[in-house]
């Protein structure tokens, strides 16, 4: 989970940097795939601000990685696994919203965003695994 969080954090930093530098993403451009159309859309900003949603994304991966690292340090508190599970579920719900905006509003998919979404899904599945391990212990 630490590795997944690190990759996710790296992607979020890249997307944030590209946003503020005004650069374009290395990405396929076709009828259905256009990262720049997605990352330059109004939905790519935190509501009512000019802050890209990759910034809260960075924060999410940072917290997720922190929680995972905590578990590696030694005896983890009993609340850690459930908190991580809830943290992942919240993120997945937001991913559902983002997928909706990509597919139903912008009508174009962003490859980089999809990679981040899959990392969040992986984090959720690993959180479930941790809950199972916790019950076995």
């Amino acid at each position, binding site marked *: 989970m630490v590795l997944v969080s690190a990759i996710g954090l790296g992607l979020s930093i890249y997307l944030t940097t590209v946003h503020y530098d005004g650069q*374009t993403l290395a990405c396929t451009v076709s009828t259905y795939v256009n990262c720049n159309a997605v990352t*330059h859309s109004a939905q790519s900003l935190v509501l009512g601000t000019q802050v890209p949603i990759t910034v809260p994304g960075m924060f999410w991966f940072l917290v997720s990685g922190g929680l995972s690292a905590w578990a590696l340090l030694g005896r983890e508190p009993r609340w850690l696994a459930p908190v991580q599970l809830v943290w992942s579920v919240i993120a997945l719900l937001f991913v*559902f919203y983002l997928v909706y905006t990509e597919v*139903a509003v912008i009508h174009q998919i962003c490859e980089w965003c999809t990679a981040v979404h899959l990392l969040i*899904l992986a984090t*959720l599945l690993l959180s479930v695994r941790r*809950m199972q391990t916790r*019950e076995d212990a």
Partner: protein
Amino acid sequence: MAPKRSQSRQKALRQSGATGRPRTPEAATTGGGASTQARRQPSRSYRKPKRSFWRGPYPYAGIIGVVVIVVLVVVIISHVNSGGTPNPGNVSQAVSKVTSVPESVFNDVGTGSLNSSQLPISAVKTPTTLTGSGGKPEVLYMGGEYCPYCAADRWVMLSALSRFGTFSGVKYMFSSSTDVYPNTPTFTFANASFSSPYVDFVMVEMYSRTEPTNGQPNLQQPTAEQQQLMSTYDSGGGIPFLLIGGKFVGSTPYSPADLAGKTQQQIASNLSDSSQQTTQDIIGNANLLTATICSVTNGSPSTVCQSPGVQKAGQLLGINPSS
């Protein structure tokens, strides 16, 4: 009270079948008691331990199932809303802002920061009559998606020509990331169409965002006639190439640097504010292009061609857009 409590306890033990002493000879010899009986003759009150929700593959299957269902529902909603065809979504919002700039902005900007010594449109030395397939005056654009100057020019063409007709199929594009003025935000005309009762606009995006190494068109192939027009009126072969009715030829309208660091939405939204530099660039040049188009449509439509902004552009070019 004590004997009474003892009787109740014994009654409870009898009911549960756990009397605390052997009930059968086998049980007595083995000493297994109630547990042995339970092993050999399971009690009716025995319950299997409750299986935890978290165990097994069910949580994973549940999560994957929910994800698949949500994605399918979203795709279906999208498909139903768009009538089965891809909808540009936010692209259409941005295009809509560019193609519906208020007339007051055109008039406020006039010719923007353009001056007569550096005009991006000029009359050709040997004018001809260029008409489209419908017999209307033709505006021919030849360019490429990688080209940053074409990127800047498309904003002008989109806002100017939308005063004469309607665009469809315009998509987002960025100029090449490896050329000068990299990633200039713009649109592409590669799959766009234009309809107008006044003018035919022919768009040829010859090159994709990735500039071909051999210099040959890799997106849309120009016709022999178009190539001939380009070589006649643009001996250098540079793009963008813009020929208006065979009478005017356009070149790069303004520096793509002015668009750098902005999104299409920001530029499009700013077009309602005549004080913005990008608005001065785009709308000032759009008035200039409009004036030349008016001169080949004989001043039609009059509401556009007689507007103060277009008249001012006509004065700068030395032409009369009203006739």
